């Protein structure tokens, strides 16, 4: 079995494959391509599924971003929990609206249900993404419930050999909270604006390139 069969690969983000069961947080300014990078990291290979919790934009907008990144957004391949404020998304088998981003109980149960649905459909490897964690942190009555929520998702992903990628613009949150939340994840990808455009670097994961790398969020491939 090749290493690529035991890892998640990325066609449009310049990082090496990561082991199944890995959880990542992607931090950086939204205006520098945070959403584009998250969606690129979530683009599924033919045998995989993608599950997105969208809290900043509604489900149709998130699906469009996923499609633009090269993902197959057809029903069933892409499944979503839409907890964006003022969303008018209608519930379907594969898209579950949650009226309030503070409702971590509902978001978590719908996420579990959609994840189990992938198993039931014979798909064992799921890429799960959050765009972004900011509303969950902002609206939560107690940040400890967000820690519990993220740990639960991370635990499921680790046990199920999945991949979890959460986006967060650190400028939207208290830096102490961002620092603490980062510890829940196995690794971190930082996005910043460099002199010649966007750059990324990977922290905390083995076998990844060192230092800052140029990154073009509009490029569909390396």
């Amino acid at each position, binding site marked *: 079995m090749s290493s690529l069969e035991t890892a998640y690969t990325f066609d449009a983000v310049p990082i090496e494959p990561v082991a199944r069961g890995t959880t990542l947080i992607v931090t950086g300014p939204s205006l520098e391509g945070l959403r584009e990078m998250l969606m690129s990291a979530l683009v599924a290979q033919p045998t995989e599924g993608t599950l997105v919790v969208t809290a900043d934009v509604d489900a149709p907008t998130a699906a469009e971003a996923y499609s633009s990144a090269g993902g197959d957004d057809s029903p069933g391949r892409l499944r979503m929990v839409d907890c964006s404020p003022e969303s008018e998304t209608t*519930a379907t088998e594969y898209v*579950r609206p949650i009226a*309030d981003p*503070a*409702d*971590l*109980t*509902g978001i*978590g*149960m*719908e996420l*579990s*249900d959609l994840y*189990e*649905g992938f*198993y*039931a459909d014979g798909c064992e490897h799921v890429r799960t993404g959050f765009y972004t964690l900011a509303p969950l*942190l902002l609206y*939560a*009555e*107690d*940040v*400890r*419930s967000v*820690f*519990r*929520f993220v*740990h*639960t998702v991370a*635990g*499921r992903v*680790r*046990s*199920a050999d999945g991949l979890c990628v959460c986006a967060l613009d650190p400028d939207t949150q*208290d830096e*102490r*909270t961002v*620092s*603490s*939340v980062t*510890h*829940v994840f196995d690794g971190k990808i930082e996005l910043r604006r460099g002199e010649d455009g966007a750059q990324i670097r990977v922290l*905390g994961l083995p076998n990844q390139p060192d230092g800052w790398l140029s990154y073009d969020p509009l490029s569909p491939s390396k």
Partner: protein
Amino acid sequence: MPSELTVICADGDDADRAATARALSDAGMRVQSVATVAAVRSGIDPDVDCVVTGFDFPDGDAYDVVNAVRDANPDLAVVVFSDASATDLPRPNQGGLVVEYLSKTMPDATERLVALVSQATTPNYQIAYPVPGDEDERIEALRRYDVEDSDAVGAFERLTKLVASHFDIDVAFVGLLDEHEERFVACEGANWETLAREDTICTHTILEESTMVVENVREDPRFAANDRLAELDIRSYAGVRLTTPEGHAIGALCCIDDEPREYSDAEIRDLELFGEEANEQLRLRRRLDDSVGSSG
């Protein structure tokens, strides 16, 4: 391993409860079947690894079960196993009751439940606080220290008395962070013995190398909603990590006051010096214990 797990199986419906309990038992788990929220509350003990619950009970619902579990053991995972869809289940009044969920209508639902319970009992699965990347090694390192004997406690009591006096604060303590709770080895100015990890500031202190200062707990989003800190009159905090020679953070030496308080650079340096003294005491305990172990 499933054969080592003890699971509370709670369901208000007799037939559903029996079927779920049978599935878990057939997988080699020890199962305690209960029919009420009250029975869940009285059944939680340190041997329980996970709680599987239906939704409806004669004395409440699954969210009451979650609250009962979290009151007794905040780190214990709860799986809601219901024939109602996630979309149709009523939502709790509180938004933060995070659980695992599995629909009984899923194909191979009982097999998936066994798998889900197994994964929900992995370390840190449903905890409400961050842990350091070296958590397993840190806990293992902590087990090598014996600070419960009177000599060690006396040394830490003298140190915390000195710290409280030096900074003119209400409380000074040395706390060690076990797997699920902080254990106060010495506590000048209060009678605290243990505190759940999710309620402690020290859980965050051990994440960073620098000394942690929280000038006003109510204005820090990590702690502002923490009722336990308010109950204990913890309004300001400064804590320095206590580490093993290998660098694992096993606890903290801390200053507490019931008013917002700033710490100058000089005061932080003083606290770090006190912390070095506490570290020396800890290392002495380990060296003595290692030598006792090797000679005995």
